[in-house]
């Protein structure tokens, strides 16, 4: 009978934790704030609440005596939150960079089945057909606003390691690119002159790779090119070097073909008609996507992988931290066993004891969460990194430690605190008073 009771108790605890975790992950921040306010009101207004507050104060005042073991909770949870937030910040940063690169009023056209610009090729005639298609916005002179582009990959050393080779994308763009991608701004020097071997470099590429300062010369395809300017666009294009399509094509012997055509649409609604029109054209076999869909798809796999890795690592670390917290809090109630028993002997009920132990753990956990998230924010917010992207070349991106992620981190911290405090709290309230008083 006794073992059965114990078993039931265990099942009940597991159920409570499962329900708590499910509700907790779904709870928006307003819900948590409301919950905190409710607890505070309860503690200020009811008799039981005031008792709880007194017991919690006693517990907190003794934390300094248990500094070593309390810091296990804080540091353990700081570690979990730090690693989780850093991994998610990497994933978010990469996704955000690529998401910002596309929008719904420009479309990119590639040869059918190519998947990435690097694999694609469109001859001059096909490119012209695409540009003249209905739905493409015309400029004041009545010409379509479109850019036939080439992407080639060059080897450049990284700043951090002069002997390394990195694949850096070089994009040949047409004059219309400024109307097409209006977020691109020259922030230093000037733009390239058509027909000359001149390049402008993205801000991200300039920060990551060596020898890209304005005025410097670099060797590409056996020829010398001059860097004449730097541009900023706050998206994946910043990882690239841009030159004139014709110059790049002649250097890499591409003749008059291009790899992709990007067009400005009359409106986002014009996309479906534009796509249908090209699909129906027997001269063409092309894939048409909005730039938004094109770039989002590129980030999908890596973003997902990073998220899964981050959360898996986070869960395993959290399990470790929960048991660390259990250890600490069991030791804490052990040390205060007599004091808690005395309180209960003079008439304090179980609830204030349970809540006070839980509150103490969760406050320690919150402290850990704030420290972990804070450290990651200090080190990694806007930290620049790069990886191999879809065009077989480097994509430079920045870690994004936004408020959303910090909040996720704190939620994890509080969840760990809740589980780590629950069992010791119940134990403290359930030990028979007489046993506890007799111990020690």
């Amino acid at each position, binding site marked *: 009978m006794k073992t059965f009771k114990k078993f039931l108790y265990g099942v009940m605890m597991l159920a409570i934790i499962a329900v708590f975790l499910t509700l907790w992950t779904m709870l928006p921040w307003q819900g948590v704030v409301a919950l905190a306010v409710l607890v505070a009101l309860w503690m200020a207004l009811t008799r039981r609440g005031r008792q709880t507050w007194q017991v919690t104060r006693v517990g907190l005042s003794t934390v300094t005596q248990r500094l*070593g*073991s309390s*810091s*296990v909770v804080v*540091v*353990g949870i700081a*570690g979990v939150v*730090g*690693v989780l937030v*850093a991994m998610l910040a990497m994933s978010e940063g990469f996704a955000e960079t690529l998401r910002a690169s596309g929008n719904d009023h420009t479309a990119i056209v590639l040869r*059918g*089945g*190519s*998947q*990435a610009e*690097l*694999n694609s090729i469109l001859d001059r005639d096909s490119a012209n057909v695409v540009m003249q298609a209905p739905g493409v916005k015309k400029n004041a002179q009545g010409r379509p606003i479109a850019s036939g582009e080439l992407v*080639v*990959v*060059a*080897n450049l050393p990284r700043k951090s*390691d002069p002997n*390394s*080779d*990195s*694949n850096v994308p070089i994009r040949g763009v047409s004059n219309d690119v400024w109307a097409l991608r209006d977020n691109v701004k020259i922030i230093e020097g000037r733009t390239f002159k058509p027909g000359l071997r001149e390049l402008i470099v993205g801000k991200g590429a300039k920060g990551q790779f060596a020898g890209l300062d304005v005025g410097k010369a670099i*060797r*590409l*395809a*056996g020829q010398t090119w001059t860097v004449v300017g730097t541009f900023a666009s706050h998206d994946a294009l910043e990882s690239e070097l841009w030159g004139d399509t014709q110059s790049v094509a002649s250097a*890499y012997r591409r003749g008059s073909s291009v790899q992709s055509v990007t067009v400005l649409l009359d409106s986002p609604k014009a996309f479906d008609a534009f796509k249908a029109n090209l699909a129906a054209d027997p001269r063409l076999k092309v894939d048409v996507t909005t730039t938004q869909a094109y770039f989002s798809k590129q980030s999908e796999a890596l973003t997902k992988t990073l998220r899964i*890795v981050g959360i*898996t*690592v986070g869960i*395993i*670390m959290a*399990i*470790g*931290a929960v*048991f*660390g917290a*259990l*250890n*600490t809090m*069991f*030791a804490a109630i052990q040390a205060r066993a007599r004091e808690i028993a005395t309180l209960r002997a003079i008439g304090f009920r179980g609830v204030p004891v349970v809540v006070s132990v839980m509150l103490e753990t969760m406050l320690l956990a919150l402290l850990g969460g704030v420290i972990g998230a804070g450290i990651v924010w200090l080190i990694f917010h806007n930290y620049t*990194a*790069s*990886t*191999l992207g879809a065009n*077989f070349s*480097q994509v430079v991106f920045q870690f994004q430690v936004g408020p959303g992620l910090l909040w996720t981190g704190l939620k994890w911290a509080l969840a760990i605190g809740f589980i780590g405090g629950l069992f010791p709290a119940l134990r403290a309230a359930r030990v028979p008073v007489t046993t506890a008083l007799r111990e020690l």
Partner: protein
Amino acid sequence: MKYFHLIWAALFRRKARTFFTLISILAAFLLFGMLDATRSAFDSGNNVIGVDRLVTTSRYSIIQSLPASLTLQMKAIPGVKDVGYSNWFGGIYQDPKNFVLSFAVSDNYFDIFHEIQLAPEQRKAYEATRTGAIVGAALAKRFGWKVGDKVPLQSTIFPQRNGDKTWPFDIVGIYTAAPGAANGTDQQFFFHHKYFEDANAFQSIGTTVGWYVLRLASPQDADRVAKAVDALSANSDHETKTQTEQAFNASFAKQIGDIGLIVTAIMGAVFFTLILLTGNTMAQAVRERTSELAVLKTIGFSSHSVLYMVLAESVLLLVLGGVLGLGLAGVIVPIVAKGSGGMLNLPPVGTQTWVLGFVLMLVIGAVVGALPALRAMRLKIVDALAGR
């Protein structure tokens, strides 16, 4: 060893605490095992099998091809045993998600990559079949391919002369990777460069190759031969860069990201926490056993044996949790690799990981045990028994 029973009893004096600590240690080493497997999946730089190989690529860009005419000139360089070449095909099978590492290779490719182990009759069949393909055992398993299957691969880059981007292949052989081969060796798909040239819509492809692989008579010649190869095309429009296969792989892995650094950073955070946690456990354990330790000393245990017993206890705690954790990682890693459908190519938890793991267990055990053990050693019997 004769005190083992005593140490064991001391360790499980408080079952709950030891159990909680063990689970934390287990979690840490589980993570260590999994992350180390991930790291080594990206780290194919230090396998010894390819030590006698050089890779020659275009100096300016990985995507630029090289003239096929270099083959003869390279062969003439003293110290070069064999010259093979390869071209990236960019194949996908049925769905864009099923990416296949596929290469059009020269006929001597399998002599240069001797870790590709193929039955002689399958090799013969390959040589006799124009559209023949050789696939790695792991890749064949992933898609359920068998010898004799006709497999269409779609190239993301190269259309056939008739404009069709789907290339038919006959699977004539399935190879295995020799022990010690780089991770992922048995995930590749090879076919005749000749077929690739003849059927390709890009006619000029016949006079170019993607990159060269050179087999050396002796690895010591690597530097000299690399310089001689690069000198062949110096100041031309197709300058080359020749490096050892190891250097080539390492620089490639680095482009994906510094996986090693990320793993080290995570493990640093984990082990720092672990030291604090187990250190706290050990300190508690020694503190509440003060009088017992004093009794041990009273009945004749020397201060040093008390020191060693406490140290042994903390090392034992770490080793118990660590072995369980790494063992669990050994079970989980293959499941994860399998669950990812061949996309994540995780090697099993290897000897190297176990050795490193053991070193970590011993070191962390000694570090966290040191302070409590010293305290136990310096214990004055009188004070301890009096509870002062």
